[in-house]
């Protein structure tokens, strides 16, 4: 697939105020130049190996497979990457690019906090000043990650506007950038936003899919499954397979706590509508006037009303199928894989895990299904422990806070 597309079908583009046109054009030039520059790619690969810890393993989930009795389940352990999620692939790529562009300051937005932690770590390593915007509600939900970001030396700014979640953090980062682009690069955390971000983030994340292709070359892959917030882990995981007819590619959205508008973050199979928001055209959860709706998910990283434009297009043309998993199903999958395989999925990735369990049941035994564990679940301890084991957890917290 081309490294620079700008539009994907009717989705994508660059819908920004005039003030952001120049910095985006400058970024596009740099991206196009360096993504094919062998020096840059060598540096990126060295970082991937020494700092991120790539390649991440592809684990055969043997116990789960035996218990379910369908296709063979494999888990791509992106959670074993430094800072605990796939977000680091993109953060390092963009931070290296920022350095080449002569920028000294980096800003980012974060929902679950994983992108913020990854960006803060990359900036610490590269000696870049770092400011992270995070919704006040997400700060409350993902406090451990705030602590890590600050330990890495980043400044975490609590965003109090709107629903106090990821979309508001994006607005705040855009506000900062439109006044600071002379020395500042904005690292968008998913494969969305104005062009060239969707292309750039996909390329930096495609390392996941390339490794899978290599690691699974002896397997008969029937299905690949990934969760979709903005969609960066999914598009990076799918990338090397997009132009083939197989395997089936499945994106899993957050079914939240119900089907009403505001109770989930299902953009592709339910109430998502074409819209232009935060610089790009895609499917959004918006009302009849174009106002962004509230969303809900137990996982902060899937709780966003838009989806990356390339995935929106791939969904429409049928190359990627979409399904959804609700909060409780995600929690059940978390328990299932912890007990059977000794791996703790991030709450986001648990959505993919839950969908994989359902799909595996219908597959013949000789075929493989690969689920992307986009992150590991350490960061979610305050959510999972409360949901699964409330009383002893609360007693522990009371005791600790004395």
């Amino acid at each position: 697939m081309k490294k620079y597309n700008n539009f994907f079908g009717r989705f994508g583009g660059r819908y920004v105020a005039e003030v952001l046109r120049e910095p985006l054009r400058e970024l596009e030039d740099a991206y196009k130049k360096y993504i094919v520059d062998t020096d840059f790619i060598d540096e990126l690969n060295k970082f991937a190996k020494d700092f991120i810890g790539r390649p991440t393993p592809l684990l055969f989930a043997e116990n789960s497979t035996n218990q379910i009795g369908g296709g063979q389940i494999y888990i791509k352990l992106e959670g074993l990457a430094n800072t605990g999620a796939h977000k680091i692939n993109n953060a390092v790529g963009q931070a290296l690019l920022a350095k080449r562009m002569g920028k000294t300051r980096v800003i980012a937005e974060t929902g679950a906090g994983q992108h913020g932690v990854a960006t803060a770590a990359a900036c610490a390593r590269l000696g870049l000043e770092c400011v992270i915007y995070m919704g006040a509600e997400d700060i409350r939900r993902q406090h451990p990650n705030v602590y890590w970001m600050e330990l890495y030396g980043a400044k975490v700014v609590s965003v109090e506007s709107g629903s106090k979640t990821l979309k508001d953090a994006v607005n705040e980062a855009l506000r900062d950038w439109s006044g600071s682009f002379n020395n500042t690069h904005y690292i968008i955390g998913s494969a969305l936003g104005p062009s060239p971000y969707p292309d750039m983030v996909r390329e930096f994340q495609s390392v996941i899919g390339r490794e899978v292709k290599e690691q699974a070359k002896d397997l008969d892959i029937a299905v690949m499954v990934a969760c979709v917030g903005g969609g960066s882990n999914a598009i990076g995981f799918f990338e090397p397979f997009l132009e083939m007819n197989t395997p089936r590619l499945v994106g899993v959205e957050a079914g939240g706590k119900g089907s009403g508008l505001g109770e989930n973050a299902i953009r592709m199979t339910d109430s998502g509508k074409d819209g232009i928001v935060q610089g790009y055209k895609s499917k959004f959860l918006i009302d009849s006037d174009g106002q962004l709706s509230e969303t809900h998910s137990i996982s902060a990283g899937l709780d966003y009303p838009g989806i990356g434009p390339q995935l929106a297009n791939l969904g429409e043309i049928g190359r990627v199928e979409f399904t959804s998993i609700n909060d409780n199903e995600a929690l059940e999958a978390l328990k299932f894989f912890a007990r059977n395989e000794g791996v703790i999925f991030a709450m986001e990735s648990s959505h993919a895990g839950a969908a994989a369990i359902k799909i595996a049941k219908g597959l013949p035994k000789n075929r493989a299904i690969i689920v992307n564990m986009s992150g590991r679940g350490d960061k979610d301890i305050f959510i999972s422990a409360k949901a699964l084991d409330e009383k002893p957890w609360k007693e522990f917290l009371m005791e600790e806070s004395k």
Partner: protein
Amino acid sequence: MNREIVSHLVAGYPTLEGSFEVAKGLIDGKGYALEIQIPFSDPSADGPTIEVACSQSLKLGFKVDMGFELIKRVKLYSPETPIYLMSYASIVFTNGVENFVKKAKLYGVEGLIIPDLTVGADEGLYELGKKYDVNIIPVLVTSVPKNRVDEILRNSSSDWVYIALRGGITGSYTEITKDNLDFLDYVKGYNKHVMAGFGIQSKEQIDVLDKHVDASVVGSYFVKKTKELFDKKMDLSKGISQVISDLRE
């Protein structure tokens, strides 16, 4: 000096009725034109004052159609006051670009200011503006390169150009530099009327701008004053009329 002011208000803020009172006050205080902002849930170019006003208006149930009804009432109150409607791409796109432009014309709107639909990424807005005879007012900022200024102004049939005096967001104070003034003069060379703003909150700033623009745009300052008057339960239209008269004096 003429001291023309394009005054900005947020439709539906502090209430729907209140925003009509504010409009009356701005007109009574001899504002040259009104820039009426249709609230959007995610106004990424706006600072805290306007952002909060927009979310307040939406919380009270504001719908785009109420904005057009407000414009109709303001036009009845003062048919000769030009009205510029400001909003974001999401609002225009979701309501249908052509439908939106037609409606603007029908309700007597002189121009649309949609900062995130720019020439070349405008969903047909600029052409539709020509077709229905509505000014689509480009929003420039002084960091825009000259060749892009050319491209925009060549594609624009609007009488007016809006110039934001710095990057960043609305609200915080703007230092008016020589570069700003040079840029304003450069754009005036295109035979366009120029309105300029972003962070204008004092007579002194307007004094400096006045020789270089056809109108100064004042936004967050009025929204902030509106909040103060509303919180103190004072008469919005009288109070705002005084605020703008003081600026124009």
